[in-house]
């Protein structure tokens, strides 16, 4: 049994007496909550897309729930070497024992599986993703793309050669809000010329996961230790640490918004607080150099969560902050520099609505406030999308559209590689305690 369960009850479910009776806690009775029923092809009329998942840990289960909400997407096979994860995935996908595997090759043998979610620990990404592509499956692979640059390149080349879709899980690429912010910065130039970026993902917590009880069904010796299996993020042998797990989301955005990738990096990190046996740094501070003198500072902490996570794009006309709000909504704030000319916001807003009915800028006049560092002239909420889908949902809609209709891949192998190079080189700089130059050829597949 999973230790943590969430049961989202719709209004309809609330009104059904049977559901309420089920929700009633009868202590020893221990009602087993049913996950949301996946859609079937008949229900949605969409062309069926049959997927499998390999490695449904915490993030994988989250991805699976999102993926099967895309009309027509059905999960027909699941694979994990850890029993609690396998059981959770079976329940989410509603598949039986005969479609639950502990050897991912058996899942790839399945002819009916058209595409797979690869959500295993980082060092296994390349191996399994490549096997899946070679087996003729389309692949969604969680970020970071790979544990090494060479692995990432191999994945990219395999995708190219096989012609299969390979999408990497930097979901902000699919965010309507972030895409809108890109337009604001690059077409509307709301911040003028960008000279600096500050980004951070600060949390206050050990990052350690509790270990569910259950059998480890297969795998090499190292993975037979539940601590290594569940807390793989904390050990260098299996993890590229905070830069990879958190920073990569944001460096992907920085690369994207700046239309560039870093040319050099330096940084520091350490195991300075959570001395619990981990060898992955519990704090990292990094400075990137981008072309044209743009500097990017990045920080990720586990001891102080002030300001949470955000990216601040700082130009000579203003600062645009992108982040994700408490409810997963994309959130944008714009602070204009005092010397910058006034923007005609009303007219501007109108135009945006004409151009794309799905995106709206909501100006909050009451938020207008003089701040010491600049005039805060408006607070904008970047609509998630017209129908309330967040970046995670859209990421899988986009993936399905790329597979079915050949639409461009939102976060393809090239984006994944460019992000991975920037992250892995930052870690190298921290280890070597020096400024590391990133040659351009590292970014080419």
């Amino acid at each position, binding site marked *: 049994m999973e230790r943590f369960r*969430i049961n*989202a*009850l*719709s209004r309809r479910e*609330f009104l059904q007496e049977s559901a309420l009776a089920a*929700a009633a806690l009868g202590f*020893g*009775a221990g009602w087993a909550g049913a996950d949301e029923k996946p859609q079937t092809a008949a229900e949605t009329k969409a062309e069926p897309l049959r997927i499998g998942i390999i490695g449904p840990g915490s993030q994988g289960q989250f991805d699976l729930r999102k993926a099967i909400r895309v009309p027509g997407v059905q999960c027909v096979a699941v694979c994990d070497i850890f029993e609690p994860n396998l059981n959770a995935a079976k329940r989410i996908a509603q598949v039986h024992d005969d479609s639950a595997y502990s050897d991912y090759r058996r899942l790839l043998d399945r002819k009916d599986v058209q595409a797979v979610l690869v959500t295993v620990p980082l060092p296994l990404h390349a191996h399994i993703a490549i096997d899946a592509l070679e087996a003729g499956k389309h692949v969604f692979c969680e970020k970071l793309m790979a544990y090494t640059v060479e692995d990432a390149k191999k994945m990219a080349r395999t995708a190219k050669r096989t012609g299969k879709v390979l999408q990497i899980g930097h979901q902000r690429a699919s965010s309507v809000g972030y895409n809108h912010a890109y337009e604001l910065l690059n077409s509307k130039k709301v911040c003028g010329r960008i000279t600096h970026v500050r980004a951070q993902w600060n949390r206050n917590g050990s990052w350690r996961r*509790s270990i569910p009880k259950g059998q480890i069904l297969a795998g090499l010796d190292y993975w037979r230790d539940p601590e290594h299996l569940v807390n793989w993020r904390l050990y260098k042998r299996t993890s590229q640490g905070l830069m990879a797990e958190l920073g990569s989301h944001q460096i992907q955005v920085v690369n994207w918004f700046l239309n560039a990738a870093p040319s050099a990096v330096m940084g520091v990190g350490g195991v300075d607080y959570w001395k619990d046996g981990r060898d992955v740094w519990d704090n990292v501070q990094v400075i990137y150099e981008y072309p044209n003198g743009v500097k990017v500072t990045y920080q990720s902490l586990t001891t102080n969560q002030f300001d949470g996570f955000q990216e601040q794009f700082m130009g000579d006309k203003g600062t645009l902050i992108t982040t994700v709000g408490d*409810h997963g909504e994309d959130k944008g704030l714009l602070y204009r520099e005092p010397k910058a000319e006034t923007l005609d916001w009303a007219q501007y807003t109108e135009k945006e609505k004409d151009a794309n009915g799905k995106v709206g800028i909501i100006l909050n006049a009451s938020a207008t406030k003089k701040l010491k560092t600049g005039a805060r002239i408006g607070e904008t909420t970047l609509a998630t999308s017209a129908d309330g889908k967040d970046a995670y949902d859209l990421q899988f809609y986009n993936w399905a559209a790329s597979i079915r209709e050949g639409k461009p891949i939102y976060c393809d192998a090239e984006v994944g590689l460019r992000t991975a190079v920037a992250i892995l080189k930052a870690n190298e700089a921290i280890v070597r305690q020096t400024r590391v130059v990133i040659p351009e050829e590292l970014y080419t597949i």
Partner: protein
Amino acid sequence: MGSLFEIYAGGDDLEAVEHAAYDALDRVGWLEQQLSHFLPESDVSQINARAYQEPVPVAPNLFALLVRLRRLSLETEGAFDPTAGKLVRTWGFFRRGLLRGERVTPPQPERIAAIVQQIGWRYVQLDEAQQTIRFLTPEIELHLGAVGKGFIVACAADFLRSAGISCALLHSGYSSIVALGKPPSSAGWPIGIPDPQEEGRQLAVVQLRDAALSTSGSAEQFILAEGTRVGHLFDPRTGQPVGGEYSVSVLSPDAAEGDALSTAFAVQGVEWARAYCQAHPGVKALFALPDPQGTYCLTRIGTDWD
């Protein structure tokens, strides 16, 4: 801890509800690690390791909790006492992997008597200005097992509330339950009170709404010491296990306090609990006690049940 933690939540925007619930679970993970008795790096373990030697800085949330627990210890006349961890340890309850009903050797009475003499908040200094804790005897050991679940459920509920969720039910291990609001079509969240003896039988159903329900009982965790059944509840004033098989459920505004009170009521008994509830109108209790035939029935304490 390490028990099932579950959130039921509803609302117009299910996506937002789900996101808030996942965020709440993140916080649950952090808090468990802060309070755990088993993780050597947890705040509680660090305090226990060092506070007899020197004042140890305490995180603000934990400090505030300790101040509340001290008050509850005083109010319950020592029947609830989180400084008595050594007692539970000496009886052999802290060993990981302890089996239900396992046979153990009971501790020496002299050892128990010595511990009882040297525990209690009078031997703990909480320095409000410095936010530090110091133990004045080596026998003090903080053990938040009786209230940890309730505290964490309450924190998760607070988080959901601040995220705009107005309709949710949260529980940790079925023994600490918090209701935010109520389902639209009923008077409250229906919670079954189980028969301590007969599995599957419910003694009553409580409609929980904007309140916490905490249950303590000797029926669930026990060991055998020289053939005698010893429950995991102790009277910190005598060092002896609380006898009998029964359970106490407390309905109160706050799950951490409810947890503490259900423990104290189990130790103090029905009549003491009745007096406490009269003095504290927000608190009600349900005692599941065996009648002379051995069948369990409920005794309701406090006003306005139903």
